[in-house]
């Protein structure tokens, strides 16, 4: 980590005064995300989930920290690696797995798939699969919130690879000049798909080192420390809500697996993988909670609940019927149909 650009991280001591209840909530969110995506991986291996998937195993602290910090009516914009960002807003495991499996239990009854999870009622305004676009779209939601005076904030998650596409730069510039209530969160997991981000980027810190170009503070945080993420999120959300404009946060993290289902991630050095597995956010946080005197029994209850919940969710998602064929030509238009001619 480049300590010269981590003023905010320095101010975010992980041992700050979060309540035990909040810590248990953060742990529960991370643990449930982990269980959800591990099971999604198993279901892929069983060919019960088709197509592709982009798992965020190892990156759960970013989703959990922000999910716990956001107001219920804030907007989430995420990427195809967005299962966790969707889950932490309150969407059920069954609705996510159902969508991945293409059954009527799914959020969109199979019309979107893994890469497009959306749940408007939970503020999840979409998972976007074309790199960069959703930063621009999140601006629009933030503009709408600003115009309506609703106090809502749009939070936009993306990967390190996104920082090299034009839409990233267009979005940051517009967000700053319009002082939009939007928080951009770069999850730097060190790889854009199969290539080390450092090999294809002009600067060391792909998001933070670009911040100054838009007059923004360079913020780098430990994305594997959920307390740090949570506190960073609280601060950025508060700034946005009171009219202080956008933030750009680079959360350093690591994905435990490859880019997508097809990628075993063999291009990564073993020592690097081992080092980051040692920084897994979930066991580290469990240990911290124990050290802070949170009873093991409470933690174990969270874990047992999650394990039971995922089993029930898999059954619900798997047993739901496939979508009726009539759905294929519904909902192109607001009238529910697909007619392009009379």
């Amino acid at each position, binding site marked *: 980590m480049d300590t010269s650009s981590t003023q905010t991280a320095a101010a975010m001591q992980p041992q700050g005064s979060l309540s035990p209840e909040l810590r248990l909530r953060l742990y529960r969110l991370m643990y449930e995300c982990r269980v959800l995506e591990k099971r999604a991986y198993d279901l892929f291996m069983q060919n019960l989930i088709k197509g592709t998937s982009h798992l965020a195993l190892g990156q759960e602290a970013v989703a959990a920290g922000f999910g716990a910090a956001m107001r219920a009516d804030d*907007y989430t*914009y995420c990427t195809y690696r967005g299962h966790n960002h969707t889950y932490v807003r309150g969407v059920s495991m069954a609705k996510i797995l159902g969508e991945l499996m293409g059954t009527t239990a799914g*959020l*969109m*009854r199979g*019309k*979107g798939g893994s890469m*497009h999870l*959306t*749940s*408007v009622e939970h503020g999840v*305004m*979409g998972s*976007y699969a*074309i790199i*960069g*676009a*959703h*930063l*621009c*779209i*999140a*601006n*629009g*939601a*933030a*503009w*709408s*919130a600003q*115009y*309506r005076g609703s106090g809502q904030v*749009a939070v936009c998650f993306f990967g390190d690879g996104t920082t090299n596409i*034009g*839409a990233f730069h*267009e*979005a940051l*510039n*517009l967000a700053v*000049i*319009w002082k939009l209530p939007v928080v951009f969160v770069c999850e730097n997991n060190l790889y854009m798909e199969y290539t080390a981000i450092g090999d294809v980027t002009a600067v060391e810190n792909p998001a933070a080192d670009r911040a100054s170009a838009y007059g923004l503070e360079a913020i780098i945080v430990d994305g594997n420390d959920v307390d740090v993420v949570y506190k960073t999120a609280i601060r950025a959300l508060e700034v946005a809500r009171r009219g202080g404009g956008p933030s750009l946060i680079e959360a350093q993290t690591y994905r435990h697996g490859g880019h997508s289902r097809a990628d075993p991630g063999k291009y990564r050095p073993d020592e690097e993988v081992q080092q980051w597995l040692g920084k897994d956010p979930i066991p580290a946080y469990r240990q911290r909670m124990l050290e802070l005197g949170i009873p093991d029994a409470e933690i174990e209850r969270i874990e047992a609940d999650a394990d039971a919940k995922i089993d029930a969710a898999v059954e619900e998602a798997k047993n739901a019927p496939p979508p009726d064929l009539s*759905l294929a030509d*519904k*909902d*192109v*238009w*607001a*009238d*529910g149909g*697909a*007619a*392009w*001619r*009379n």
Partner: protein
Amino acid sequence: MAELTYRDAVAAGIAQEMRRDDRVVLLGEDIAEAGGVFKTTVGLLEEFGESRVRDTPISEQAILGATMGAAMTGLKPIAEIMFSDFFAVCWDFVANEISKTRYMTDGQVNLPLVIKSGNGGGARFGAQHSQAVENWAMAIPGIKVVAPAMPGDVKGLMAAAIRDPDPVLFFESKSLYATKGEVPDGEHVIELGKSNVLRSGTDVTICALALMVPRAMKAAETLEKEHGISATVIDVRSLVPLDTQTILSETAKTGRLVTVEENPRLCGWGAEIASIVAEELFWSLDGPIVRVTTPHVPLSAADNLEDAMLPNAEKIIDAVRQLVD
């Protein structure tokens, strides 16, 4: 009735809707202070203020992204893409995002938005500022496509596009901005998806769009006077939804169809109409369906080269005479 220019009718349509609905907002390059490079948004900043009429940087992706995000969270935005050629730098938002979101989300998200854009040739701007690209848009499920030819339709169709719950691409013909026409006073709205029969004849039906409409009308008048050929002229107005019933019924009456398209030859909108008419009206036709288009080349800047490529009354007359005679 007032006589307005095509460009003033654009602003009139937007202003009418901004007065009745404060969710309607406008954004684009040079559209506020400057009133638009084509002067289609003059007076809107003054009347509605800078929170509703916003200048943007030269960032077409940021413009369309902001438009989409605002539309999915309660506003009814209108974006200007200055030249329709510039859609090529933000096509992701049209082809992947705006068009597909309602469908992919199983109807959770509606996108009531309008993207207006100066389209087409005839102004000597060269190959990257003169394209007629309405057929690009027509090829994507989930986008409505409108291209008016006269000021009254500009105002009425703009109003309808703004009120429509779906995304609408609104193509303004750059070479028609200075033309004048009658525009009804007071609230004026024209239903999307309805073509307009401008002239009824007996020998041939001509379908035209935008800049091609006045050229088709001129051709029809000459055909009548000088060649004794009686032509129906349909202003298609809306490519999606497409008013095939009017096209089919008017073609059935004359037995012959000519389409007049500004777009380059391949995959132009006339090909889709020709295919529909061939499938559904084949046994009522008295001759082949003929397409008059710009050749499959980029447009040149020089007067004579650009004029030689674009369809005009003479080319339409030639095509019709070959078909009818």
